[in-house]
């Protein structure tokens, strides 16, 4: 099982959890498993066989869109991070 970190904007869907667990050897399998375990969270992130456009999915710190997308491999020890896409620049002015 891999750890999936949930950003604040999606915690309601995850029942308030900061992280959840899901299994899969690729991002596709992992997101399908996530959707089965936590349907409300799964459908915000992954729908109709694609990652939703305003969500970024990172495996071990790298955006899967610049790797192999849904086919990106995931290991048991991997940390998967979900983040909302946002306008660039540090919001607090740093």
């Amino acid at each position: 099982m891999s750890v999936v970190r949930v950003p604040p904007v999606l915690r309601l869907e995850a029942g308030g959890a900061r992280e959840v667990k899901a299994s899969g050897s690729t991002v596709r399998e992992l997101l399908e498993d996530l959707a089965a375990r936590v349907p409300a969270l799964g459908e915000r992130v992954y729908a109709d066989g694609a990652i939703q456009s305003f969500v970024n999915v990172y495996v071990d710190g790298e955006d899967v869109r610049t790797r192999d997308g849904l086919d990106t491999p995931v290991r048991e020890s991997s940390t998967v991070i979900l983040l909302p896409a946002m306008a660039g620049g540090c919001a607090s002015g740093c």
Partner: protein
Amino acid sequence: MPQAASSLLDLIGSTPLVELTRIQPEGRRMYAKLEGQNPTGSIKDRVALAMVEAADLSPGAELLEPTSGNTGISLALVAKLKGLRLTCVMPANATPERRTLLELYGARIIESPGELGSNGAVQLAQEIVSRDERYTMLFQYANEANPRAHYDGTGSEIVADLPHVDALVAGLGTGGTLMGTGARLREAFPGVQVVAAEPLPGDPVMGLRSLEDGYVPPILDVSKLDRKLLVSNAEAAAAVHALVAREGLFAGVSAGAVVHVARRVAEELPEGAVVVCVLADGGWKYLSAPFWRGEEIDERTLWW
């Protein structure tokens, strides 16, 4: 010998490139492009000048731009020297240095809700421009003059300064630096990797009410990036400390994220590889940030 410039605007760009001999991994070379050497101290001088010149505005025209700082300061300089007026929409919790600088340069400021971060500033600016015709919004997130400034300037300068580049690493904000510089480097060095260093967003983004408040800048084409790596605040802070402690290079926090990623990329490339990092600004505007005082950054309290 260099000749005296007739305007500060003539001093934008042509920034120096320096090897990071004390930070680069053994057998690889890392070069930093010092964008803090631009007249207002950041890479955004290039973007501001290019956008204003492309817009062909009449004197007295009124610009309005959502900005968390650097772009506003650059636009304020360019606007002043070209006889234009500028209003900046910025999150209420932006650092006081930024705000003071903008006001000194003569910009007017409208605050957007701090908890909505830069997305909130973009939304408010769009609302104001849609109901008030006086304003022109150059909007760096969607303005093609932004990546073009980096194609013509940043990228061409690197091509002129180095015989070969294996990877380019820059921060991901609007996407302008990566798109424009990346395109120019690919022409000169077809195998070059274009790598985005993405800072873990600051806590104000926690206030996003929904994913639909998210935003992907229109000028950013993620398919043109070879890699996109997330950098934690602690990693960026450690790298920015290392830059000043080991290289004597006092850089901004996004430079820390860039150098952290550049080291990782350099280590993964074969011996002899050349990695260029674009350091967007100097550290001056962040002196009030807690990480300079050695305060512990606890990622978990912010995010997880």
